[in-house]
């Protein structure tokens, strides 16, 4: 024990300590940059995306490459800084990209299209909606959100392990016969 202590004290020259702190700070900054520009894991909460995500909370893998709406399409689940609450993130599915047309429903409505009203999504904004319509606070409440608020695309659920799966883009060719 005292031998280890003597060894470290011998190595702790001013130059060595400086290099160590520099390496430590550099590693911290590099990890922060990766966390903000490449990939992140975060716990979700709330019933607005049931049955895609568990209301009790799932750990989600988020790709930060898709921030500001790069590479996002209709049907992707995105994470965004909440427009009305500072410091909070929201996760919803994209219903309309800039220039698209969407049905405008009342907040917390259980159906889509009942009010027969439509809007065009303004440029630079996206219209988001949760998968559990009556329990989701989304663009029906606060309108289309600017794409600058988007900070990542949710690509998978990583915990609990038994339910680990990729998050699908649910937009698919229609299978009805009318």
């Amino acid at each position, binding site marked *: 024990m005292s031998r280890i202590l003597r060894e470290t004290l011998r190595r702790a020259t001013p130059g060595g300590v400086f290099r160590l702190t520099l390496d430590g700070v550099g590693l911290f900054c590099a990890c922060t940059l990766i966390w903000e520009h490449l990939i992140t894991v975060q716990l979700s909460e709330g019933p607005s995306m049931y049955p895609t995500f568990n209301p009790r909370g799932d750990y989600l893998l988020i790709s930060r490459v898709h921030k500001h709406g790069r590479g996002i399409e209709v049907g992707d689940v995105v994470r965004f800084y909440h427009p009305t609450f500072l410091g909070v993130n929201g996760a919803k599915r994209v219903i309309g990209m800039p220039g698209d047309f969407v049905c405008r429903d009342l907040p917390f409505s259980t159906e889509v299209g009942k009010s027969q009203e439509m809007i065009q999504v303004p440029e*630079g904004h996206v219209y988001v909606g949760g998968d559990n319509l009556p329990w989701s606070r989304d663009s029906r409440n606060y309108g289309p959100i600017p794409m600058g608020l988007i900070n990542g695309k949710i690509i998978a659920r990583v915990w609990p392990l038994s339910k680990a799966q990729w998050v699908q883009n649910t937009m698919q060719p229609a299978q009805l016969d009318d």
Partner: protein
Amino acid sequence: MGCVMYERLRVLRILAPIVPIGLFFSEHVLGVMWVSGPSMTPYLNEDYEQMHTKRDMVLVNMWPWGGAGWPWERTRRLERGMVVTFRSPANPGHIAIKRVVGLPGDRITTRDPCMKPSQIVPFNHVWLEGDAADPKRSLDSNTYGPVSISLITGRVMAVMYPRFRMLKWTDWEQGLVEGDVERKLGDNYRHEVRDRVSKEAVKLERPVLS
């Protein structure tokens, strides 16, 4: 031959942590930005009329308002008159610079492209406008509505080029422009903008029948 390689590797090894520290610093602490466009004349880019290519260089402070909190708290202490940088709601790939004219709760009398004659600034949003006298030269809240505070990335602290001057937002209320010794910009700078803002109108407008 082997010695030179070793020396180079050693230099690289010492410089390696500097790169992420530098990137982190320029993104989260202090950064430099070039201002292009006429929307903030004559406050920034004063010579836009004569020289469209000469751009002002500004120093942007990205730390949440000088120690108002740690990075994960994301608190913002914004005041009217601050010049801020933010992700433009019209184009998410572009960072824009405008002045904060209205805080949450103010009632703004809007100008040109806006279709509603007056708007109240909602919670967690601010009203941003460019300083240009002609509203058509500025793409701001009059076009895309109040801007969410979550979009704001930093506050402009100083202009570095052509002339160095520290920007003091407190002068906005008195109509002064720092560094304007010759009074080129006149007295009571942009008072017509301040006249259109009814501060904290939500506290004054009482939703009762009387």
